[in-house]
């Protein structure tokens, strides 16, 4: 019995029986051109012998062998195959007849795989059980239940769009109804491209980071997302850090910031850091030291404009009347905030008071005119630039405070 598809003009393959093992030169580099797993879409046939004979070869592919099933996109989409096993239409390589794996060799491959899998079984949890877990339907239903508020894809830095959109109504309520936020100068935020928002930090809890994100996302015509950089104490704080990370927050460090800016995103930094959150109510709106000017170095290295931002209202929303340090150290926190409501009302005391908020975006400061990327190591220059940004933010805060009037809540 000979297979008509095996006929090669110069080899006289007619005397090779179909059930003989494939010739040794079959493993030549020629079959490397073969698109992956094409035999999967071989047309169905009546008997297994027909299938053996009717296996098509590269010269006459059956019409529509690819693109028939929606799952064939898996074999042709370059992002799944890294662009290497790309299959183009009507491109079947040079006319070298290629044998396709017959049913027997596929079956032996499967047996080999099974044997290998068996040999690697761990005695603790057999693979059969892993593949067919008991109560599988319950597990599947549980998995769907557990995935209900999260996305199976997060971005590079851990922002989960489904999780974030779940909290949007609550944040919008806070932004519009509760804090009645007024946003000024949003036109200073560029519609595209990298930029660094430099804002003051205040209040016992980082509500200002969330409101700054909402302000840009709601008011800016391009609906841009802001990635706030969070200090270690906030980022690693149980629950709070995880929550802010899923909402878009990122741990503050030069590598992360440079990665975001290289991706042309908007980054918000709070150079006061944990000192800004930890300042007492009597020191409200008095800017602390602006770190070591890391944001200036970042702007110089990446060539990003700096946009000073002033946020007013956060100090009154969660006023910090005292700090517990010794107890907080035992709990692994920088300090334990004491607000008028917090320890008294329990966790409900962490809710903010309804102060009236104002957010002002200043004119972008482009540092490229001050010097090239070489100047990031010039400490005097960095300190001078950081001080000038700090003065701008402080001026904007004074301006907003004067415009606000006597009451912080009306």
């Amino acid at each position, binding site marked *: 019995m000979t297979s008509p598809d095996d006929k090669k003009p110069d080899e006289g393959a007619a005397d090779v029986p179909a059930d003989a093992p494939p010739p040794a030169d079959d*493993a030549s580099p020629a*079959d*490397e*051109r*073969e698109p*992956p797993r094409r035999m999967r879409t071989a047309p169905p046939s009546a008997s297994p012998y027909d299938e053996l004979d009717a296996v098509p070869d590269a010269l006459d592919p059956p019409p529509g062998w690819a693109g028939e099933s929606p*799952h064939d996109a898996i074999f042709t989409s370059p992002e*799944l*195959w*890294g*662009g*290497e*096993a790309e299959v183009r239409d009507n491109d079947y390589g040079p006319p070298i007849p290629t044998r396709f794996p017959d049913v027997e060799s596929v079956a032996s491959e499967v047996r*080999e*795989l099974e044997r*290998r*899998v068996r*040999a*690697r*079984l*761990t005695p*603790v*949890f057999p*693979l059969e059980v*892993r*593949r067919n*877990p008991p109560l599988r339907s319950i*597990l*599947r239903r*549980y*998995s*769907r239940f*557990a*995935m209900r508020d*999260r*996305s*199976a*894809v*997060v971005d*590079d*830095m*851990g922002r*989960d769009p489904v999780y974030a959109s779940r909290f949007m109504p609550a944040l919008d309520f806070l932004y519009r109804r509760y804090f009645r936020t007024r946003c000024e100068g949003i036109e200073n935020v560029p519609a595209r491209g990298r930029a660094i928002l430099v804002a003051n930090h205040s209040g016992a809890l980082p509500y200002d980071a969330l409101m700054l994100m909402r302000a840009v996302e709601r008011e800016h015509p391009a609906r841009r997302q802001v990635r706030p950089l969070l200090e*270690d104490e906030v980022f*690693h*704080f*149980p*629950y*709070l*850090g*995880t929550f802010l*990370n*899923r909402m878009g927050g*990122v*741990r503050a*460090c*030069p*590598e*992360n910031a440079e*990665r975001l800016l290289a991706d042309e995103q908007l980054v918000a930094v709070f150079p006061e850091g944990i000192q800004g959150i930890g300042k007492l109510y009597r020191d409200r709106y008095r800017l602390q030291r602006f770190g070591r000017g890391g944001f200036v170095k970042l702007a110089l290295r990446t060539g990003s404009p700096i946009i000073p931002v002033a946020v007013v209202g956060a100090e009154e929303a969660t006023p910090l009347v005292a700090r517990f340090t010794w107890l907080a150290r035992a709990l692994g926190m920088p300090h334990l905030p004491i607000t008028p409501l917090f320890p008294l009302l329990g966790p409900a005391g962490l809710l903010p008071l309804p102060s009236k908020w104002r957010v002002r975006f200043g004119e972008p400061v482009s540092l490229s005119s001050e010097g090239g990327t070489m100047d990031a190591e010039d400490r005097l220059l960095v300190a001078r630039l950081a001080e000038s940004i700090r003065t701008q933010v402080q001026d904007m805060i004074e301006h907003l405070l004067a415009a606000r009037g006597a009451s912080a809540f009306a």
Partner: protein
Amino acid sequence: MTRADGDNGARARAPSLQARDRTIAITGACTYLGTELIKLLEADPRYSRVLALDIRRPDLPPDLIKTEHHPIDLTVPTVGSQLASLLRGAHTVIHGAFLSFPTHAASWAHELEDVGTMHVLDACAQVGPSRLMLLSTTLVYGPARGNPNWLGESAPLRGLPGSRYVTDKVRAEMQVARHAEEHPETAVTVLRFAPLLGPTVSNYVTRFFSRPIAPVLMGHDPLLQFVHESDAVQALKRAVDRDVVGPFNIVGEGVLPYSTVLALMGRVPLPMPHFVARRLYRALWATQIAATPATFLDFLRYLCVADGSRAERELGFRARYDVQRAIQDFLGVAPEDEPDIARAQG
């Protein structure tokens, strides 16, 4: 795992690799990566001889022509001279004799991983092969508060203090780095693999995620990273084919929060405070119920995610399985079988 999986590009771009007389020596041939690499090398005409060095014969088909198995026990003090005579004439030495599980026999593991690396490097210093490759893991970066989201190859190897499993690997890396400085005639490549996940590979990660219940440290949900087993093998083959030097992170596409990984796998999270989890795991490890010691809980607390862009740039390696597909393949579900996951993605 077919041969057509992407050597064409490498061959076209690296014509110097047409040499047909290369001998490759692999320590740890019984590990998953070692065995799979031997199969690929056996099928590649550019390599003439493969030395499989391990205690027992690797689980290979019987009809291999190029591969020779030599029983080598790296924990024997006199293994050095035996290794040196075997490695004579080898073009590339691949050192992959590392454990895929943390073990209770910590001193034996130390002899195998740390001292065994010393034996291999001593033999390499005598013989002077052209290339030396170390198969390491991204665990050597260690979970730390101060880690950036994506660790480059130049990040410090903090390791995991208190875990001898990770410490031995860090020390092996340090020895290899010193060897690279002292022997510039040997091109040293270090491949740091993210935790391998897949249907056939067996390591502490697959054991951990095979349990129906998984511990969660309350309030902590770091991003996790895996590499699919077949991607890891492809990256290893590419690194063997190309004359690249230095450390490379071999990682899969994308990251997922630990809680999402558990939800996709249908595992039940058991939240507990850190000090409770640590004590519980110490007890479970002592009674050999848990697959990992208590120190590994730090991986569920802090970030340890490596950046694979250097491998993509210089090695041309890009993972075909992203993290969701690696999880699906590990579970043994095809995407079409599991509409829930597909729906959750959309």
